[in-house]
């Protein structure tokens, strides 16, 4: 058995209108990973996911899922895979539980087993009360959660989430991430595409950035974030200050009388900053990143690619 959950080798896609969506990408995702596949709109993310899940025909290249080549043994490769697509892709007129149980049936799972799994998933995803409702009556967030239940009912070893939290409110989003982190810890490999980069930063171990059909970055999240040369922090102060303290080694700006923005280089130490502020009688109540760090890098990498 391969050490990789997914291997993509020289994958190319040229559409009928001659648009070259993928220019021969290579990607390897290890088993048990929580992997972010990011890129701007039209970069080739959906084409890649479409080909892996056989919704889109490839032009060239190879894909292996847990070592099984999709061209050699497509049914076996597909049995490992669960996909939460970007667009709603179930019959809107069917009942919620019928959609999940039917999807399990397509994988050859008997009804009794499917019913038990459906109950478990709908409860975990806060949809149990809606099980008898027609899918068209669900809210946008509920539909997305139904897509997750549908993708997980055959207990896939590799789960692809294409924008899973779009339209989901904050509280349910948090529950959803808890649930997904939990199944990742239990061994399911997860590939995530999202426009909420803070979610990718928070949950993913490794990352690939795709732009104009090519992989422009493929590394660990930690390594990528360590490349940030400077970081800006917003400091909420306990008391108002009249004037900006002069801390020569730090770049400080005042947002208002109770908020400071500190820009630190890689070599700067936060403890020293707090110590210096304390010497000036300034107490920090809370602190946060001024901008999402991954977002900063993402924009930088895509810009660099455009310039090249």
């Amino acid at each position, binding site marked *: 058995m391969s050490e990789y959950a997914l291997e993509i080798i020289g994958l190319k896609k040229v559409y009928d209108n001659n648009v070259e969506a993928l220019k021969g990408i290579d990607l390897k995702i290890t088993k048990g990973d929580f992997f972010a596949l990011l890129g701007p709109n039209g970069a080739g993310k959906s084409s890649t996911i479409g080909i892996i899940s056989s919704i889109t025909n490839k032009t060239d290249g190879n894909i292996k899922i847990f070592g099984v080549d999709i061209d050699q043994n497509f049914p076996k490769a597909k*049995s490992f895979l669960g996909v939460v697509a970007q667009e709603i892709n179930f019959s809107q007129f069917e009942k919620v539980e019928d959609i999940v149980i039917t999807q399990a049936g397509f994988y*050859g799972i008997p009804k009794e087993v499917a019913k038990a799994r459906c109950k478990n998933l709908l409860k975990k995803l806060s949809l149990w009360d809606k099980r008898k409702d027609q899918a068209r009556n669900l809210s946008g967030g509920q539909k997305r959660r139904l897509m997750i239940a549908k993708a997980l009912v055959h207990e896939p070893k590799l789960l692809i989430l294409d924008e899973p939290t779009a339209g989901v409110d904050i509280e349910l989003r948090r529950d959803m991430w808890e649930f997904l982190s939990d199944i990742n810890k239990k061994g399911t490999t997860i590939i995530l595409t999202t426009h909420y980069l803070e979610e990718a930063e928070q949950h993913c171990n490794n990352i690939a950035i795709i732009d104009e059909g090519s992989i422009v970055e493929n590394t660990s999240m930690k390594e990528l974030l360590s490349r940030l040369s400077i970081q800006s922090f917003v400091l909420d102060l306990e008391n108002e200050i009249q004037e900006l303290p002069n801390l020569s080694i730090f770049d400080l700006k005042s947002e208002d009388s109770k908020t400071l923005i500190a820009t630190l280089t890689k070599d700067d130490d936060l403890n020293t900053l707090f110590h210096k502020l304390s010497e000036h009688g300034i107490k920090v109540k809370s602190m946060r990143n001024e901008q999402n760090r991954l977002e900063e890098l993402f924009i930088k990498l895509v810009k660099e690619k455009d310039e090249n």
Partner: protein
Amino acid sequence: MKTKELIWAIITLSEKELRRFLRIWVQTLVPPAVTTSLYFVIFGSLIGPRIGAMDGFDYIQFMIPGLIMLAVITAAYSNVVSSFYGVKFQRAIEELLISPMPNWAILFGYVVGGVARGVMIGVIVFLVSLIFYPNFEIQNYGLTILVLFLTSIMFSLMGFINAVYADSFDDIAVIPTFVLTPLIYLGGVFYSINILPDIWRNISLANPMLYVVNTFREGMLGSSDVSIPLALGMMVGFIFLFTAICLYLLHKGIGIRQ
């Protein structure tokens, strides 16, 4: 997929297809019963006695096999074309494409849905016809049932091909309205081609619907304008041909995959 899993997957898709048309039974099962009743009232009871006998049968009796075939063909075709185009339109086709089900199993599931609705409609229209002609007796049960199933399978497959190529709801209405219905009406539903002048009789023999309707009439009434072995051979031949086309389209992903 293991055999057990495959069987379960086919049962699931077939059940889903049955559930779909039974859920909207007012749209799928009732209209043929109403339309056929009107045909029997107008052409059978009011105009029929003035027409007299057709091939030695009461006109209403002659019409019954033709009207059943008309309803069966329309039901089987429209069930598959609307269901498969519906899943394409709603992107629910992705549920099937992502799953490990082989193409032939997907086709089989849709054909089961079309055949189930076609046969169900056939039985409903026959029961309605008994209200208007209670003494009707089926002459050859084996042939009648065989043709009922072959016809449903053949037109389910045709509906599938139409749905694969359809890009809009207009596309799924064009073939039934402008091709199927005229051919069925001119295929001996309401008359025997023996009453036509030679030239029209010969042209009618090129209409494949004539063979379907007449083989069914042979089963129900024991009377036909065409050779039964030839007609059965044609039906089986078309089923093989359409199955091959459907599997080729699914394999290539034409109209389904980008």
